[in-house]
């Protein structure tokens, strides 16, 4: 679990560099809330909280949720999301190893549905920011949201947001992508964050901490369907690389979908599981109601994991094919 946290560092550095230190404040809030929630439930369940707190799983859930949030989301949203993730997403099912759904994504989905305005208020990336926020500025805005009024241009649509709204208005893709927030492989800022997560993820793969099948099949699935529609009509559908380096793709591929507790477990099952998440992410992004679809794609496939496992059992030695 510790290595997962270490592997998140490049992505977090990119987040801080591009979107300011708000994410650090969120991580601290989330860690405190997550560990407290875990400890409280365990005490209520009459268990010794120490082994569970030390296994690092609550910390990983908290940090994964914190890095998914807009950096200046009010503190109570973070506390609510993380507590919901730990209490309802994990402990009420019996704790580590027994939860069918990825707790961080449970927390994220609940926040997104409950507080859509706060959850879509992303900051402009470094290149476009009119003000540079200090750590204390972030703290003050997170704890007193009305303080945000004293700063200009604090929120801006993400490339995926913009794509969704503008395509809805039948604007040509080239025109949309000429907006300043786009650039590089996907969007300014976002490509670096995704590369940071990819770097950390590749390190986890090298260390053998995560199974290669899920990231590979997830990214391949996303790439193939994006390529299909891109070739079909490139004025409506952005390139596969845009999808790879937008939104939560790399975080999802290496850190979320690979959560072993909630993923499929058989070798073939993992390939199917990852590929279907990739497809669902694309479907939700392109035709769904939300700009990014990772949380819902992962949760939907969590549902399917036991069934996938059942139908992909390997042939056991000595049993005919």
């Amino acid at each position, binding site marked *: 679990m510790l290595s997962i946290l270490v592997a998140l560092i490049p992505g977090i550095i990119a987040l801080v560099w591009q979107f300011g230190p708000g994410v650090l404040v969120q991580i601290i809030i989330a860690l405190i809330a997550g560990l407290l929630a875990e400890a409280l439930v365990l005490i209520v369940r009459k268990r010794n909280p120490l082994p569970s707190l030390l296994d690092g*799983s609550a910390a990983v859930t908290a940090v994964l949720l914190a890095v998914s949030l807009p950096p200046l989301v009010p503190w109570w949203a973070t506390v609510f999301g993380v507590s919901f993730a730990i209490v309802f997403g994990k402990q009420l099912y019996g704790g580590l*190893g027994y939860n069918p759904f990825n707790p961080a994504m449970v927390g994220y989905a609940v926040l997104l549905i409950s507080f859509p305005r706060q959850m879509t208020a992303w900051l402009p990336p470094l290149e476009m920011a009119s003000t540079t926020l200090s750590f204390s500025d972030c703290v003050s805005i997170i704890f007193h949201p009305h303080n945000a009024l004293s700063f200009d241009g604090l929120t801006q649509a993400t490339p995926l947001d913009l794509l969704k709204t503008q395509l809805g208005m039948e604007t040509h893709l080239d025109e949309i992508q000429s907006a300043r927030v786009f650039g590089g492989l996907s969007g300014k800022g976002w490509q670096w964050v995704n590369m940071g997560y990819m770097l950390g993820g590749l390190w986890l793969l090298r260390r053998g901490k995560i199974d290669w099948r899920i990231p590979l099949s997830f990214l391949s699935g996303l790439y193939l369907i994006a390529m299909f529609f891109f070739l079909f009509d490139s004025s409506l559908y952005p390139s596969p690389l845009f999808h790879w380096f937008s939104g939560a793709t790399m975080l999802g591929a290496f850190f979320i979908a690979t959560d*072993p507790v909630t993923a499929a*477990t058989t070798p073939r099952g993992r390939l199917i599981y990852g590929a279907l998440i990739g497809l669902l992410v694309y479907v939700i992004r392109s035709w769904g109601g939300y700009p990014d679809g990772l949380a819902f794609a992962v949760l939907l496939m969590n549902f399917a994991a036991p069934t996938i496992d059942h139908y992909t059992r390997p042939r056991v030695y*000595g049993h005919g094919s």
Partner: protein
Amino acid sequence: MFKLWPFKGGLRLPSHKQASSLAPLQTMPLPKQLIYPLIQRNGSISQSLVKAGERVLKGQVLNSTEEWSIPPIHAASSGRVVGIQSFPLIHPSGMDGPCNVIEVDGLDESVEFNGFADYRTVEPQVLLDMIHQAGIVGLGGAAFPTAIKLDPPKPHRIDTLVLNGAECEPYITCDDSLLRHFSEEVLSGANILMHILGVNDCLLAVEDEMQESIAALETAQSNGDFRRIKIVPVPTLYPTGGERQLIQLLTGREVPAGGIPAEIGVVCHNVATAVAVHQAITDGEPLLSRIVTVTGQGVRNSQNLLARIGTPIAELIEVCGGYTDSVQRLIMGGPMMGVALPSDAMPVTKATNCILVAGQDEVIVDKQAMPCIRCGDCASVCPVELLPQQLYWHVRAEQLERAMEYHLPDCIECGCCDVVCPSHIPLAQHFRSAKTKVTRKEQEKAKADHARLRYDARNTRKLNEQMEKAEATKRKRELLTKMAENHKSG
């Protein structure tokens, strides 16, 4: 290069073999006592043929049955029978059991042994009987009667003999030592086994790290008529030495689930068993001794000992310089599949390949098991491609039928899953106990079925009796009426 068919999974484990393999093979001096448990492999207790106070000779049969499933046990030296005493048995339960105890007199007087000058002129059936009479069982650790394995059920046509010299479990080097010191006997034994089975191909598997053994075998091979035996170096990967894994690796064939290797034309024996067969057939000498590895941080000198069967383990430890201060646990077998021994008073048996005197760092500390996080590492190392984490799920919930669907009986209990489990769950142990539960349930079911059959039969019988009775009464009544009528009219 010989084509190999690698099996899935397996583990590269730290070998810990040098300590014992570098030391020379030492022959144990005559022990003071010899101890022979009367309890047999199948749990039955065999009848002792000797009485307390009687003098026995080396090679004299101590207990015997006609059944091939229970090969006889011979006195490994001459002495006086003390009687039957209770000793702890090599069993996880740590139970005591009756043992024949012999006070060795030091004369080592022997009965006369007569072998065959040329086994090729002898009928296989006669040789098989001789192998049974010599008390030979599989010396790899399972101690299955060799004669039974050499006489597979008729429909199966055997084409390949596999000799297992792949000593894959860490610490154990008794087969390595045997191959280096008895290479010619191994090859000669192989020829005899091939004659009995009527096969022309023999694959002798040796781990590629046992270079000296391979060299010794090659030298021996060039000195005699052993052309039909192929020496195959196999990768050092646990559990290559498992019978089914080795057969798959060498032939690409899989033993059917619940079946025996003979069904796919293969018979597999340990290399030490081949040497025992050679000694029994050419010298007429029964199985009296075997090589035992004594190793671990808990013993002063690690080495291989040629020990007489029946020698108390304490005497082996003594020859190896005694215990060190760090001794923690006594294990028979290796660290992966070995059984913990409650005491060193128990004797070397035919199944004792290794005494691991585990020190502080060698005992797998019983770490607190954490919840399964379904990481799947266990599935990736399982050599039979089970899904241990799902099996564990069903076993824990006592859903034995679901566990059977996930092929519980196919688990070979190698323990690879235990080693890689990040939550330190003793998976193999769970599976072993679940298998026992399944067996017990099946026995209960068989019993219940039998009782039901008897009950049904009794009911039918009663019904028939009643009907017969009614019939008889009716007939009697008719007869009486008839007689009365006759009387009236007459």
